[in-house]
């Protein structure tokens, strides 16, 4: 019975379709990318979160203006809990802009307030290279003409003003927000600026958000090979970088859930081929370097770099592997990291016993199922009670997830790593892999876990 109903789901049997225990004999995937069961304690966020929170927020030199009541802006201030670093910290992640819609704005419309807000924000921060305006739930309902207001404001202030129709109620998760951000940035930004010069080795890195500086570890590897990173989408990106992204020779796609849309459109319109990569762990990183090198004809240089980097980390990884051998992990991530990290953990001697995603699509589950062993639980859009059941009954030695799930794990006495914003990253490529392994060691072997008392015959809530 590959599709399974967890005990905590007895009252919501529709969850069975999302809960798959891998069996090679049957070719099944868990149901994904559909509406959440109402009231099931989902961990999912909204379309606005996918658009501003994930994809657009890392852009470091535009005013991100949230059109709506105040809460939505407050939550994404400074990236929220996300650690998408940039080299413009005096502006980026420091300021939060909102129209703070009040009841009378909801009744009579918020277009005037939005227009004024764009002008005022620009006046306070004239160095910003654009204003991005995000629609929240209430705005979609009252029907403010965002496009019209942004066009008028753009004519007035002379810098780009772009609107994103990313109301939270659209779609079933953050995922649609990624798509909306991709499409809007493609249509309004990409192709609006020409690079100062071109080389035969211009590449974009698409779908890396520079979490705790990942990109600053990733980029030098390619640059040493002789490649120029023309644009990053969107970690540490200037809006101007994205504007000139259409002239790259290759798109290297890292997050394959939040950015396949823009890669596809750039391929269609500008003929830029796409190369998919996992930049976590030794094997995957080396493969990505080799794939890119093969594209540009830089194989010899790549092998040199790989040899040098691997020799630096391999002995330490072997040590960690000995320490971690036999440990079992439950991976729950947004989507692609759930499968990026199955292989990375395997290199550390840690086997995945359960893998789940918040907003994965079918292709994410194909990749998870390719990578995990028989009998592994593959779960779509898990809710808090399911997570508790898995952490309790499946007894992983380690849980890797996000902040909301962190304290559930702690309260159940299960060692935990924050895979969304990291503990002390960066975690990408060779150097980051050592950080990752060090953090896994810290949490697995922290003495405090041994001090927890388990009370016998404990009753509910006593």
């Amino acid at each position, binding site marked *: 019975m590959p599709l399974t109903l967890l005990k905590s789901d007895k009252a919501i049997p529709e969850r069975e379709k999302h809960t798959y225990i891998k069996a090679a004999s049957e070719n099944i995937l868990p149901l994904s990318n559909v509406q959440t069961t109402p009231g099931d304690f989902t961990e999912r966020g*909204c379309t606005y979160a996918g658009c501003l929170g994930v994809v657009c927020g890392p852009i470091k030199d535009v005013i991100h203006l949230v059109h709506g009541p105040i809460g939505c802006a407050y939550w994404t201030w400074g990236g929220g809990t996300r650690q998408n670093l940039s080299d413009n910290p005096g502006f980026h992640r420091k300021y939060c802009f909102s129209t703070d819609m009040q009841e009378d704005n909801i009744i009579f419309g918020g277009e005037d307030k939005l227009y004024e807000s764009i002008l005022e924000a620009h006046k306070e921060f004239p160095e910003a290279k654009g204003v991005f305006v995000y629609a929240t739930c209430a705005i979609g309902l009252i029907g403010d003409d965002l496009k019209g207001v942004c066009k008028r404001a753009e004519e007035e202030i002379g810098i780009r003003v772009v609107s994103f129709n990313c109301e939270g109620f659209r779609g079933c998760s953050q995922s649609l927000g990624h798509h909306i951000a991709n499409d809007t940035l493609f249509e309004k930004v990409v192709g609006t600026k020409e690079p100062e010069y071109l080389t035969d080795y211009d590449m974009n890195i698409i779908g890396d958000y520079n979490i705790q500086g990942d990109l600053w570890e990733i980029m030098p590897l390619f640059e040493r090979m002789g490649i120029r990173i023309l644009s990053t989408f969107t970690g540490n990106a200037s809006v101007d970088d994205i504007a000139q992204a259409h002239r790259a020779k290759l798109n290297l796609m890292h997050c394959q859930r939040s950015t396949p849309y823009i890669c596809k459109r750039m391929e269609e319109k500008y003929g830029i081929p796409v190369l998919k990569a996992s930049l976590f762990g030794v094997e995957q990183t080396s493969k990505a370097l080799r794939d890119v090198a093969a594209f540009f004809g830089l194989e010899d240089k790549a092998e040199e770099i790989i040899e040098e980097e691997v020799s630096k980390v391999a002995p330490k990884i072997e040590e960690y592997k000995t320490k971690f051998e036999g440990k079992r992990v439950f991976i729950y991530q947004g989507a692609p990291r759930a499968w990026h990290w199955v292989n990375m953990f395997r290199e550390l001697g840690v086997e995945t016993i359960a893998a789940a995603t918040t907003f994965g699509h079918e292709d994410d589950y194909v990749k998870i199922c390719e990578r995990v062993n028989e009998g592994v639980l593959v779960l779509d859009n898990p809710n808090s009670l399911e997570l508790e059941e898995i952490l309790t009954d499946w007894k992983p030695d380690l849980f890797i997830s996000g902040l909301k799930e962190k304290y559930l794990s702690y309260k159940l006495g299960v060692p935990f790593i924050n895979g969304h914003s990291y503990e002390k990253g960066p975690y990408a490529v060779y150097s980051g892999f050592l950080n990752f392994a060090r953090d896994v060691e810290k949490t697995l072997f922290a003495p405090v876990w041994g001090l927890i008392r388990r009370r016998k015959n404990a009753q509910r809530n006593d």
Partner: protein
Amino acid sequence: MRSVTINPAKMCQPIGAMYALFGVHAAVPLVHGSQGCTAYPMRMFNRHFGELVQVAVSSLGEDASVFGGKKNLMASIENIIARRHPELIGVITTCLSETIGDDIDGIIREGNFEDSKVVPIHTPSYVGSHVTGYDNALKALVTSLSVEPDSDNAKLNILPGMVNPGDVLEIKQMLDSMDVSHTILSDISETLNAPLMLPKPPFPSGGTSVDEIEDCAKAQGVIALCEHAGGSAATFLKGKYGMAADTICPIGVANTDRFLDAVGDMTGVEIPYSLEQGRGRLIDAMVDVHMKTCGKRAAIFADPDVALALAEFVTELGMEPVIISSSTASRKFLQKAKSVTDGGEILNGRDLYELQRAVKDNEVDILFGNTKCAPIAKDEDVAFVRCGFPVYDRVGYHRYGIMGYHGGIYLTDRITNAILEWGER
């Protein structure tokens, strides 16, 4: 005044309602809105308290936004009851469900749920702030659940507002030392500072029980510690059941004196010697550091009642509150702020960008505020005392109270240490 808000001072109403519900034992907050309305606030609680919080959402999508959210709301309540058997579900509205116009009171009535109490709480995000959201939630709990008393009890109702578990503990300890029995509405002191013991209970222990809320009409009196976050419930209890009511935020010497006097007046209990000693220890701590605190120019940002009380306390420390800034605009705050600052600048619900401008203009020495104020302290090079919600750039702030005499000592020490560290920078 600007149309654009830059670095907001407030959050929206639903998060305040969640805060109130976390203090009710075995209660589930159910947000009637889109999924971001839970995913984001939950992280704010995680960061401030370092605790697990579980909030349900009705996951309104495009269909529900067009055809109404009744189906989602009914299914949500049924699913929550079936899977978690809570004592209470608080249905918290959002800008989305309020703009759609869902009649949640009607839907809940029609649902006739028997296994759990279900309370509608109206918190449209385009009105008020997190503070008014807390106030609305507490009023909804009391109006929906309190029952006409058939007898009296000797209890006192204390409505703490959006304060920390440590504050609630300080208040409880003072009342316990007076032998005054009490109902804290709502009590986050254990639920948001929960022990790690296995097996983990389905709901954290502690919190106000639904029975206690039902019985709150029997009490002798009610004291709201934060008028803006709990005052409406106190007014309701006074109006409907005729109980004595007062509003005092017991931060600092005089405010704590007043609080204990009010407790004494309502219950007829004398203030015990142990509390006199506690007061003496606070005074001792203040004397010890007065050469460091006197004359310092303070900027205070907090929720309205805490901001006012802090301004009074720093005045007792010989400081001058040159800026008093409230997260939430209110006429009452404005009136009171005028009386506690002697010509200082008052920011009534203005954003933190404006606060920074004011700090720049007023030659401030020390700033009080939450984590969002930390960059202001850094930019303007002033001493910084973390307080309020959220504080997440340092750990443990939720555990220790700043209320009462004992909390006053802790705050006095923190203020002085902030000044010392600033001097050594």
